[in-house]
């Protein structure tokens, strides 16, 4: 190893520790990486292209990235612009998904941070027990709760209502955990100072601690949004009427069911693409926070 590389390594932290690969290796490396990236991107590209094809075109040319006869028929049908007898109630799905996601996200941000703050900072009887319960709840796998959740919703008369779709999702254990972790990292002095100034606990929480928690709150927001937007099983067991279908349950039933639905791929792929867009936008704007969320979720183990 030359001393020049060593020196460079010291001066710029981004420089590699070991010397660069030779040119042929670098070329091969780039080819492999770009090939991998294509594998991850092409399905989405084909999805978009196919959604602008006609049914027969999609069946005949599943590989082409440009429709031979571009058409927006699939999108028109989704938005109810064409007069097909049973156009897919896509706008209803979209509306339901939006309403549920917005309510759930707002509520999770509030309730999770309140509970997280209390668990991290407030001293009260049973706190330790609650934390143990929280950890055990996080260990309960979601699919195990399919029938149980249905039973509870049924008992409370909440089956097949918006309340049944929303209320059970209003709080999530992992979110509380994330917020608790964050609040524990905040220095106590700030709160103590405010307390000496005579501020009450709720005031301290609301106007001092929460504003400091901005990064954690954004993380929680994007995670909650993504989670409730993509949620499927809970909506599946909490509703039955098609008026409560969300993008996930509606699309899943459209894709998996129905004698008459045939294999309308452009339509299905268009619906899938549209349902991906909000999360995609959020992802591209706040990728940092998705990363943070993925990693904070992993600390829990």
């Amino acid at each position, binding site marked *: *190893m030359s001393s020049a590389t*060593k020196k460079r390594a010291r001066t710029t*932290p*981004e420089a*590699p*520790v070991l010397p660069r*690969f030779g040119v042929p290796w670098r070329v091969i*490396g780039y080819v492999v*990486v770009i090939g991998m990236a294509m*594998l*991850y*991107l092409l*399905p989405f590209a*084909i999805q978009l292209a196919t959604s602008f094809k006609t049914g027969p075109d999609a069946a005949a040319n*599943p590989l082409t990235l440009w429709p031979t006869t571009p058409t927006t028929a699939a999108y028109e049908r989704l938005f109810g612009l064409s007069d097909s007898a049973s156009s897919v109630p896509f706008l209803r799905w979209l509306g339901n998904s939006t309403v549920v996601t917005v309510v759930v996200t707002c509520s999770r941000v509030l*309730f*999770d941070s*309140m*509970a997280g703050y*209390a668990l991290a900072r*407030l*001293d*009260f*009887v*049973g706190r330790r027990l*609650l*934390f143990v*319960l929280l950890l055990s709840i996080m260990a309960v*796998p979601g*699919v*195990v*709760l*399919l*029938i*149980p959740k249905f*039973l*509870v919703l049924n*008992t409370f008369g909440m089956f097949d209502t918006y309340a049944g779709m929303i209320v*059970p999702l*209003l*709080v999530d*254990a992992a979110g509380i955990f994330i917020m608790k972790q964050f609040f*524990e990292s905040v220095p*106590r002095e700030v709160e103590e100072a405010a307390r000496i100034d005579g501020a009450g*606990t709720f005031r301290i929480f609301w106007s001092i601690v929460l504003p400091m928690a901005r990064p954690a709150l954004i993380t929680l927001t994007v995670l909650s949004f993504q989670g409730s937007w*993509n949620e*499927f099983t809970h909506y599946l067991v909490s509703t039955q009427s098609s008026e409560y279908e969300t993008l996930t349950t509606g*699309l899943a039933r459209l*894709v998996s069911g129905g004698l008459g639905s045939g294999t309308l791929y452009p339509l*299905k*792929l268009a619906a*899938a*693409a549209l*349902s991906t867009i909000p*999360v*995609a936008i959020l992802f*591209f704007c706040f990728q940092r926070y*998705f*990363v943070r969320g993925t990693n904070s979720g*992993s600390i829990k183990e």
Partner: protein
Amino acid sequence: MSQTVSRPAPPTGRAASRPGRRRRVGRQGLVGWLFVSPAVVLLGLFMLLPVLMAAWVSLLDWNGQSNPFTGGKAEFIGLENYRDLLVDDGLDRTLFTTSLRNNAYYVLLFVPLVTILSLSLALIVNQRLIKARSLFRTVFYFPSVTSTIAVSTVFLFLFQGSGTVNRLLSWIGITGPNWFADSRGVLWVLLGALGIVDPDHPSGLLADHGFLGLSWFEWLSGPSVAMCTMILLATWTTSGQFMVIFLAALQDIPRELEEAAALDGVNRRQLLRHVILPALRPVLFLVLTLALIGSWQVFDMVYVMGQGAPGNTTLTPAFLSYQSGFKDADFGQGAAIAFILFAIILICTGVQRWLLRERSGRSAR
């Protein structure tokens, strides 16, 4: 992990601080419970209570058409539902063992595959040489934030009999299978291609004898072609998420460590083996655990991509639980399956925790 660690400890012992503490508890106790009450009520009602109710229902023969909590028509049958699934020969047990077999193969393939792939992606993206690193990270990460339902729809299209993938394969002279309609086990397909067995006509010892209602031939056939497609999809969507976890750990490796190794004149492979991989060990176990738990919970994909078809080879315990309850109106059995599944997941996690404790315990403490 324990919250007492990060909190500045009271200057004196517990007993000494008691009066002060009590006053604080008095003041904060109410507020504290006020703050956690929405979470406690909601989690109690929709996480804890359901488990208890389902435990009761799993002991009933309940067809979903009456109230199981006030007597009604649901008969208390004790452990009958569990016995049907695990002991008594019959359709219930055959379906359940089939779903266990399917899921076991899923675990066997998916867990190593996704771990190796995500680790490789992380190592590649972490290369300080690569230009446009963040672009690549975004590309690999994106599938894991999309909804499983949406990407399953895309995969259904790609893997049709005359779909994109088979069209690609035909370019290199391979006639691809009809992915979602092919119930043959891949192991037999591969052996069949070598002319060792005839996958279409099982015969001999393996086909004539069995265990828990499935013949050895069925036990050993490997995941079906259709199941492999789902494993591919899961790998594709999950690898980005695990890559991010690995990346965070890679960036936490002290640079001095690598530089010291470099000064010792190690080459790239030695650096990976002796410096990077040991540093990644805890995260590696974490990823393995997450992958393992996740793979016993496959549901969304199964719902969209076949609901058990072809030939029950994509049936998973999670989906079978749902199907028994909501489709066959046998909620007792559905709940029983859910509890067995819960036990499986807990055991898997327990075993991994134990392994993890053994390893990290020695080095850390």
